[in-house]
């Protein structure tokens, strides 16, 4: 298990490749890899967004992420997990979060990556402050349920 909090831009696909390269012991055992990448949109709740600041609680964030991953690894058959989360000033199209799960079977991989993401959204101490196109700033009050509402 690797959990990384990074204050500089990161490339999720390179993170995955580097992880796989250093985790040679998984070779041949992995049948399913489920990856989620969250990136910054340039709109939210009907407003144009030009930037965002991500605050976190150093120490508690890592601790909660490890708790989340440990609970998921007890529930599903998982080989390894990588979580990378960005903090600091970010801009549209920047990756915010990467969750990658390696497993022997697809059901375990899908369920556990989704479970990690949902738990991260509700329990990992990160807070987003949006900078609107107008330069107004606002704290995001709560995370959405994850679905775009059809008009």
């Amino acid at each position, binding site marked *: 298990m690797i959990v990384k909090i990074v204050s500089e831009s990161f490339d999720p696909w390179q993170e995955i490749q580097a992880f796989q390269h250093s985790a040679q012991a998984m070779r041949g055992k992995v049948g399913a890899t489920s990856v989620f990448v969250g990136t910054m949109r340039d709109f939210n709740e009907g407003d144009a967004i030009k930037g965002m600041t991500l605050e976190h*609680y150093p120490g508690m964030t890592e*601790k909660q992420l490890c708790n989340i991953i440990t609970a998921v690894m007890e529930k599903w058959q998982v080989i390894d997990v990588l979580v990378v989360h960005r903090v600091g000033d970010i801009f549209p199209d920047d990756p915010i979060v990467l969750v990658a799960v390696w497993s022997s079977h697809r059901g375990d991989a899908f369920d556990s990556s989704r479970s990690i993401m949902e738990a991260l*959204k509700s329990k990992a*101490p990160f*807070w987003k402050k949006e900078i609107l196109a107008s330069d107004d700033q606002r*704290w995001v009050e709560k*995370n959405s349920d994850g679905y775009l509402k059809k008009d």
Partner: protein
Amino acid sequence: MSIKVRYFASLKERIGRAEDQVEFTMNVTVSDIWQQVNQDKALPENILAAVNMEYVGFDHPVNDGDEVAFFPPVTGG
């Protein structure tokens, strides 16, 4: 006993401080800590509490050297 109290995100801005250091002579709970350091302010809705970086309820006991944190709902990911 000495307790470090931390605030994050919108709560930190609202209170105007990132942390407090408080001293107690008797056993206290998380709720007592809030009362002590923010006497004039009601606890805003939905605020979460942690002791030593684990989530706790407001009736959770606090011991010497603990770090107590208050913050709004998390919005990462």
